[in-house]
C-alpha cells in the first residue's frame, strides 16, 4: 500500500535541496557536463567559490551529488541513483505542460 506522507517525508531533503535557484542550476550543469571542479562550476557566475562549495555540500547531504578525487582535484558529479539525468529534464518539461494545460482548462471552462 502506498503511504504518500512517508514518501514525501523521504524525498523532502531532496526537494529542499533543489528549492534554490543556484543549487538547481548546479544540478542542471552537472546534468549536462558530467564531473566538474568547483572552479569550473563557479566560472561565469557572480557567486564566490566558497558559496558554490556550500551549495554543493547541501546537495551532497541530500544525496544528489558526490565528490570524487582526481589527483589533487576535487570533482563533483551527480549521484546517479537519485537523479536520472534524462528523466530530470523530462520532468521539468512535463511540469510546463501541466501548467499550460491548466491555463487551457481555465480558458475553455470559462
Amino acid at each position, binding site marked *: 500500500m502506498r503511504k504518500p506522507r512517508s514518501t514525501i517525508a523521504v524525498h523532502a531533503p531532496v526537494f*529542499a535541496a533543489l*528549492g534554490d535557484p543556484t543549487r538547481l542550476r548546479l544540478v542542471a550543469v552537472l*546534468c549536462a*557536463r558530467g564531473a566538474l571542479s568547483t572552479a569550473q562550476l563557479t566560472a561565469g557566475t557572480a557567486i564566490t567559490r566558497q558559496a558554490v562549495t556550500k551549495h554543493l555540500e547541501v546537495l551532497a547531504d541530500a544525496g544528489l551529488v558526490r565528490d570524487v578525487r582526481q589527483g589533487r582535484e576535487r570533482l563533483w558529479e551527480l549521484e546517479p541513483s537519485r537523479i536520472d539525468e534524462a528523466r530530470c529534464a523530462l520532468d521539468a518539461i512535463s511540469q510546463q505542460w501541466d501548467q499550460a494545460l*491548466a*491555463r487551457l482548462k481555465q480558458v475553455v471552462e470559462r
Partner: protein
Amino acid sequence: MDTRTDRIEKQVLLKAPRERVWRALSEADQFGTWFGVRFDGPFIEGERLTGKIVPTRVDAEVAAMQTPYEGTPFEWIVERIAPMQRLAFRWHPFGIDKTIDYSHEPMTLIVFELHDAPEGTLLIVTESGFDKLPPERRAKAFAANEGGWTHQMELIRKYLALH
C-alpha cells in the same frame, strides 16, 4: 529508444464541449492566449509557422515568468490537422535563447488528441522525440523550469508543515 525518457504524456479532463476545446487548440489566436505565444498566421497543415513568445493572459504568475522571454521568436511545423480529433506540431522545445540557432537540431512532436468524456472532453497530449535532443538542451530545459520547481518545493514545504 526509451519510452521513459523519450516521451511525455498528459491527460486532462476539460469540462467544455469538444467543439470549444477544438477551437482553443486549432485557432492560432486562441492557442496563443493560453500558451503564451503570438503566431504570425493561422495553422495550415504541412506549413512552417513563425511566432513570438508573449506572456500568457490567463495566469499572472506564469506571465511574470514568461516576461523575460517576451519577443523571443520561434517556429514550428503544423504536421496534421484532423478537425475535432487530432492536431500535431513539431517544435524545438525550450528554444528560448535568442543567441542560439536551433534550426539544425531535431524537433519534438506534439500531438493533441480529443476524446468524448462523460462530463466534457478528454484531451491527451504527447510530446516525443526527446532522446534525439543533445544532452545540453535537456539541461537547459531543466534549468528553464526552475521557477516552476521552486514553486513546487514551496507547496511541498507547506504540506510538510501541516502534516
